[in-house]
């Protein structure tokens, strides 16, 4: 691990593996639907050998995507320090954002239908600028709630004027 994105303490707090499962399931779903539909279309219109090829390509894409999702999941991490929250993510384009609690305007916890099915939620910290990219996906609902309450409390305690 390079020192630029090294954790401030021992290690980054990882996000739930359920995020990885969710993304892989979505990947499987879309590639499955796309691969099947494409394969059938090619088979009907052209020939079935090409169709088999299309399915193989989809399978290859799935394997690659599986690996990418895993790498991306590993890249997510956050750390709560005394005065600020650190969030890092990204494999090819890496980001590390440091948000002082006192700069927080509000915290969002969101969970879509699929996320709820997988039992995860997203916490997002908003400051006075949309440039602050402090979003942590894939937290268990308990962790999301804990983090939200903690951030809100710390934000209030350390609140500074704009």
């Amino acid at each position, binding site marked *: 691990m390079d020192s*630029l994105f090294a954790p401030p303490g021992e290690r980054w707090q990882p996000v739930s593996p359920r995020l990885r499962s969710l993304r892989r399931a979505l990947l499987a779903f879309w590639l499955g639907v796309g691969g099947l539909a494409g394969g059938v279309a090619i088979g009907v219109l052209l020939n079935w050998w090409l169709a088999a090829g299309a399915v193989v390509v989809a399978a290859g894409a799935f394997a690659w995507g599986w690996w990418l999702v895993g790498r991306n999941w590993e890249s997510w991490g956050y750390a709560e320090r005394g005065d600020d929250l650190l969030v890092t993510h990204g494999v090819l384009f890496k980001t*590390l954002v440091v948000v*002082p609690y*006192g*700069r927080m305007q509000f915290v969002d916890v969101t969970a879509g239908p699929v996320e709820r099915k997988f039992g995860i939620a997203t916490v997002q910290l908003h400051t*006075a600028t949309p*440039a602050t990219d402090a979003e942590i996906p894939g937290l268990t609902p308990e962790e999301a709630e804990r983090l939200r309450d903690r951030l809100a409390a710390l934000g209030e305690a350390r609140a500074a*004027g704009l």
Partner: protein
Amino acid sequence: MSQMSESADRGPVDGIPVDPIALDPIPVDPIPVDPNPAGEATELRRLHPATPVLNGWKYFALVVAIVGQEAVRDLDFRLFGIQMVAAVVLGVVLGSFSWWFTKYRIEGEELRIESGFLFRRSRRIRIDRLQAVDIVRPVMARLLGVAELRLEMAGGGKTEAPLAYLTEPGAQKLRAELLARAAGLAADTPEAPERQLVAVPPGVLLASTVVSAPFLTAALGFVVVAATTTVVREMVGLAFLIPWALGGLGVVWRQFVSEFGFTVSESPDGLRIRKGLLDTWAQTVPPGRVQGVEIEQQLLWRPKGWVKLSVDVAGYGGKGNQEGQTASTLLPVAPWPVARALLERVLPGVDVDGVERVLAPRRARWLRPIGWRYLRHGADDRVFVTDTGWLTRRTAVVPHGKMQSVRITQGPLQRRLDLATVHLDTPVGPVNAVALHRSSQVARELAEAQAERSRQARRAAGPERWMQAQLPRE
């Protein structure tokens, strides 16, 4: 007059000696003596009755443009006339509805605005959170002696609380009251005295616009097209020439008209910026509301040493929209020493030239073959500064206490070169404090150091109600 002694209560304007005894009566309690608690005694007030006519005017122009085209095409001017009358009547009727249902009142610490007749909206605005108060007077409004009062709040790229239109004295009175309440003073405190810091002469403004990039691009295009047309002897080129010339002149005209008579003054209520030839603006930015400053120098401004100053004020919005850009201009053009003096008033104790800068490492040339030589960053105990730009030079200045967050980003090419970029996030606006292509180690250290500096600076920051600060103004 008693007003004079009362206005002195607002604290000293630097340079004007103030009797120290006069400073004592500044109230320190959070809720100032209010002659009118919770505003219960006052009725909800309506805007000026000319409002529907003035608002209708804009739509009227639009309708004329659309329907007029049809009328010219069909040569049916009777129908055009009927449509015009209908548009006017409809516009005024709808406008009157909206006017009738729009009411406002100050209720203690809040400004309450009721509006809308189909979808009712009731908005309460915390006055101590206001970021700027502007009085804008479009030409038509000036003719009728009315003005628009804009309250700029953080969050949202557009003006969240425009009060259009009020009578001119009414707008000024309301502004004074809002500022007094925001400052933590009694509501009937008169407008604070001010002292002019800079005035931009029209000649300099015009000259700077003429040698600015948009105009030069238009002029160059004009010359190229004109030359081609002459050589080829085709009249087709003329069709391009005229709009091009108009476009180029339009740039100069707009800039000149909107920034004509630009003055910046200082008062205990903050900066006061006035500008405009036809539509006039009078902006007030209270102390501590400037989130960052950008110093821009175009290529042809260098011989004269001219610079432009723009500020980030939460609520003024970004470069995307014209209004936001106009509002964010702190000084359209001035020689650097003048601009620097102004900068010292805006960000007290900051000496931009004195901040030691570090150049980007040499290997950044692979990503910025020419520009890397101009990538600098530096920080002292008050501000973070970045320089960029080969032709147009830009310097971003962000006080440590104003930083919202700090980000490190690294792309695949940067990783190969062991480089990274550090962003200091400020509210949406012209200031773009980015230290491009630093070595990884420097980037991480910088991000950590900025987090620490901002923590300390926030601790030392003054209160939002600026008049409750008993701190000496340095």
